[in-house]
């Protein structure tokens, strides 16, 4: 069975739950304790897929958990090099993190013009359902064409976490960024 690798990044403000989303997806775990990420942590997750010829294929997903954006420190573009896709994360209980979504999307696209993007409105367990619709609708009006899908996620309850990563992976494989997964000679 052949194996291909893909790099994806999780981008967003500090404390929006990027690490928790990855932990939920990779390790199936969640902790309420907030531990801020510095630098970058790379997690691996292998997913079994079927290729165009209906053959089994192993996808090794390299998930980059980047240090969150703060007013003192922005996200370094060097971390985004070579990523096939990104999940841009906001905390639904902090409007300022939603306002900055577009900024993060643009940063990712400036490095990876053909990158695939999903948006995660995380921590939906903190907000009433009817209020949530209002918040998400407000953002959708300004959404950028490259955004593949918007998910209302909760790393705590695991709501839509797998679906979000799965959608991102499916689209990456479908568009087939072969040049990134193949070995190139110097």
């Amino acid at each position: 069975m052949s194996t291909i690798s893909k790099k994806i990044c999780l981008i967003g403000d500090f404390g929006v739950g990027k690490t928790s989303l990855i932990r939920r997806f990779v390790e199936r775990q969640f902790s309420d304790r907030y531990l801020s990420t510095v630098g970058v942590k790379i997690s691996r997750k292998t997913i079994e897929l079927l290729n165009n010829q209906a053959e089994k294929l192993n996808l090794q997903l390299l998930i980059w958990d980047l240090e969150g954006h703060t007013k003192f420190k922005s996200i370094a573009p060097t971390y985004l090099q070579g990523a096939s896709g990104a999940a841009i994360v906001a905390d639904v209980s902090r409007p300022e993190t939603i306002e900055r979504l577009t900024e993060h999307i643009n940063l990712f696209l400036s490095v990876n013009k053909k990158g695939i993007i999903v948006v995660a409105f995380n921590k939906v367990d903190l907000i009433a359902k009817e209020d949530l619709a209002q918040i998400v609708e407000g953002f959708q009006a300004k959404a950028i064409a490259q955004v593949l899908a918007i998910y209302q996620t909760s790393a705590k309850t695991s709501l839509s976490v797998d679906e979000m990563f799965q959608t991102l992976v499916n689209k990456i494989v479908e568009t087939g960024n072969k040049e990134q997964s193949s070995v190139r000679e110097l």
Partner: protein
Amino acid sequence: MNSLLKKIFAPRRMEYLTIDRNFKITDTSDGLKRFADKPEEAVVGKEITLGFPEFFGIEDILVAIQQGRQADFHLKGIARYSETESPLYIDINIIAYPDGENLENRLFIFFEDVTEKLLLEQALVQKSNEANLLLSSLSAAKDYIDKIINSMVEVLLVTTLSGKIKKINQAAENLFGYSEAELLGQPITKIVTEWASEALRARQRYRQSPANHQPSLGCELFKDVEVNCQTKAGKKITIAFSCSTISTDIEDLQNFVYVGRDTTERRRTQEELIKTLEQEKELRKLKSRFISIASHEFRTPLAMILLSSDILKQYGHKLSEDKKSKQLDKIKVTVSNMTRLLDDILTINQTEAMQVSFNPVPIELKKFCQELAEEIELATNKTHDFVFQCQESEVSAEMDEKLLRQIVTNLLSNAVKYSSPGSTVYFDLLVKKGWAIFKIRDQGIGIPQPDQGRLFETFHRASNVGNVSGTGLGLAITKGAVELHSGTIAVESEEGQGTTFTVCVPIVQPKELTT
């Protein structure tokens, strides 16, 4: 010694490796493996991305550096986690160096252990982020509370214990017409002009012994107490305030928080309702009194008619013609009295419904009044002396004869009714600046002061009328007739001394008033 040994045998802070054009490792320093994600893959001959996943995706950059198109590339703060050991952080620098053998650049990749620095940074970032999250949630909570306070329909004021305003909400700004800046630091008396005694006492009690209350819980000092307030524009309003104490951020320091509703309109409506109810009650009382008077007024004459008709029926054949005639006269007079009473009721109804017609015609007043006085003197069997006076030789006027007759007849009849036989009734006619003034004065029982103001109300009779019959309609009818002439009627009276009615009517009626 120990620390020196530790330094000598401690792992090196920096390691390196080199790779070929196929991204395969060609050389490594001895301690490189501890920096690898998968140490078993960090050996010569293996592709670099197997042991170091961070190189995946940056192949283009590696090519650019190798070809001299890019000087170098850095990746900072790459974390390596394991379940057993504490995290390791590394910085990676990639540079090209000429290879003497192949005449092409080799790629050197240096790894530096920056764990100490990054752990310190992590602690700082953690504190800073936690503080920012706290600040963010505090500011969101404040924003939320402010929105609630400002969307309240009720007025909200916060003052110090001495009454200086510290905060007001939007409803208070709207109601009092002041901006928040204009009221901050000002005494609450700037808007509250008069405190209800209940509110004053409650605040006073609290100020004197705040320790008796539980400051941390806050306590309600008074509830829904109406106080008088004044807006910036000077408008007087009534607000029902509730007042509680609240703790401030300084320990043991309390503030008063007032929440109030504008009850001005409600109070006015209430007062109007009470007034209307009182009027209604009074009217019911008057009407029931009228029914009892009217029934009495009708019953007596009806009994008299019945008696006379019985006498005529049973004893008619035995009675002389003269006695028969007297009985018939009695019936006639009684019927005419009843007719007059019915006329009065009808007139009052018409006056109230504005249905009385007003037809002024030329009239010589002096002659008219003199003849009318004589008529009444005769009709009352000359029980009283009538004195009519008029200085003018004649008074030409334009008035409604029927209504004028009603005015004068009612006033002269009253003068006779409420004074003793043998006393004098004075009737003066004066002319002054286009007005005819009728003064009718008696020496009778007079009208008590409290009744004088309500004398012209329908069905109202003075409290001292005793057994003198009457409907309480005469003066109401008179007033209506005077007003149709655009005139006025006034009374001066003293109990036991007599009464003077003065009627002033324009001699010539303005054209637009005639109907």
